[in-house]
């Protein structure tokens, strides 16, 4: 039973197209954000998505979360077509997305309250996950009293507390200073290696993309398309060694950088003309 279940992709995208209208003006320009994306993400896989800015990676994640609906195509989560956000997917936001009027514990409890958990049970679950990210001393603090790194730990604890199988992370460490970011990456790796959740992780940081991923998805600029998907064959647990010192790391990173660089140069040439 378990085997057949794990054969079903965690998330499957079929022919996703999405166009945005730039303003409310009737004859406003339309922008193609996603142009026929097909993608299958295995259960327990760590997929990072990278691409030049404006390539539609955040749009892609928001489609996976069903925060926006595609114009065409299907989002299938564990075998079921979805049309609205659901408890199997939990999001982590670039700007942390914490409610400033709620304390740490209340922020983590929030999704459980929405799911109508018994309050004391919800509190217990929330506490467990706050402890996992090492913030037990700050349960009653408000977000503005915490550093960026701590706020994102709360964001992570909240996503984990939902019990969702899939974490959708939108440049979660993008707004965090470099050293804290490294620690957060390690922590995320450790948690992922323990729980084997499916993670979809958007980033604009090449190192981060390679370091964390089972596969790196490279998007191409302009109309969002999958340019290529590159497997990263480095053993786990990756927290045990210096990932950056590995040959595979340098290979994948070099390959990605080459592709990205071409895209950027083309973009500049177009802008100049």
């Amino acid at each position, binding site marked *: 039973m378990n085997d057949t279940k794990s054969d079903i992709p965690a998330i499957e995208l079929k022919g996703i197209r999405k166009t945005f209208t730039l303003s409310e003006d009737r004859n406003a320009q339309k922008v193609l954000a996603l142009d026929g994306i097909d993608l299958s993400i295995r259960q327990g896989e760590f997929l990072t998505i990278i691409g030049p800015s404006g390539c539609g990676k955040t749009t892609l994640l928001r489609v996976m979360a069903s*925060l926006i609906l595609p114009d065409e195509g299907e989002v299938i989560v564990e075998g079921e077509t979805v049309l609205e956000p659901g408890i199997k997917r*939990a*999001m982590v936001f670039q700007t942390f*997305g914490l*409610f*400033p009027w709620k304390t740490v514990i209340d922020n983590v409890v929030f999704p459980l309250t929405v799911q109508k958990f018994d309050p004391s049970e919800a509190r217990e679950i929330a506490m467990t996950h706050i402890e996992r990210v090492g913030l037990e001393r700050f349960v009653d603090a408000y*977000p503005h009293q915490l550093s960026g790194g701590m706020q994102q730990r709360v964001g992570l604890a909240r996503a984990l507390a939902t019990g969702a199988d899939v974490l959708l992370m939108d440049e979660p460490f993008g707004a965090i200073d470099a050293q804290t970011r490294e620690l957060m990456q390690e922590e995320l790796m450790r948690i992922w290696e323990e729980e084997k959740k499916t993670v979809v992780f958007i980033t604009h940081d090449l190192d981060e993309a390679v370091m964390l991923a089972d596969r790196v998805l490279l998007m191409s600029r302009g109309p969002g398309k999958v340019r290529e998907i590159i497997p990263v064959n480095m053993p786990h647990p990756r927290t045990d060694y210096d990932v950056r010192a590995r040959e595979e790391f340098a290979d994948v990173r070099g390959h990605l950088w080459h592709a990205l660089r071409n895209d950027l140069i083309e973009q500049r040439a177009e802008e100049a003309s």
Partner: protein
Amino acid sequence: MKTRTKRDIRRDQLVGVAIFLGVWEVSAQLFDKPLLLPPVSAILAALWDLLISGELLTALGESILLLIVGLFVATVIGFVFGTLIARSKTAYWMLNPYFSALFVTPTIALVPLVLVWFGFGFTGRVLVVVLAAVVPILFSVASGLRDAPGDLIDVARSFGVKGEIPLLFTVRLRAALPVLMAGLRLAAGRAVVGMAVAETYLRLGGIGGLIKSYGAVFQTDYVFAAILPLSLLGITLVTIIARIERRLHWA
């Protein structure tokens, strides 16, 4: 310069009040025209008289009731229409000009209309308070809701909050609350003015009525004695709202 503690400030204020009242008392005695400027001692005597005769408390009770009912109705109306014009462009363009006009129209100018439409009973008086107070509440609801942080809406939706009404209560209104309270504080000040207008121009009653009727018989000391609790009422109300406001702030 050393920093001022709360106690220093209290002391400065008390000294200021003492000097002010002292100068008033002495000049009023020398000037000796109690119709124009009654001495402080006469005002205090008048206040005492109003107090023991029960006149003041009855009037105060009447005024507070009017104020609270008026503010409550204004808040309900302000929320409904504020939400409407924030969430619907059509409603905004259709209704906003009228609210803007109401905001700048002196409430007193509307009194004759209220009188012919609703009479001078409690309904009419409440309506005057509502007209005075509703617009700041409405505008603060509208602007608070318009600024609602889009990413928090996404957060709520991604964790399973469905539909406009639940989103309104879990995120939009809560995020707008500090702005709403500031609007409410402004509205409270205007409600006190509306109350005084209703009580002096619609039908004599409450504190406003007290002021007007003593003014009509040139008992200036009693007029002062009635103005004092009116100001105190306004200050108390605004202070209470400011307190709540501070508790609701998160940063």
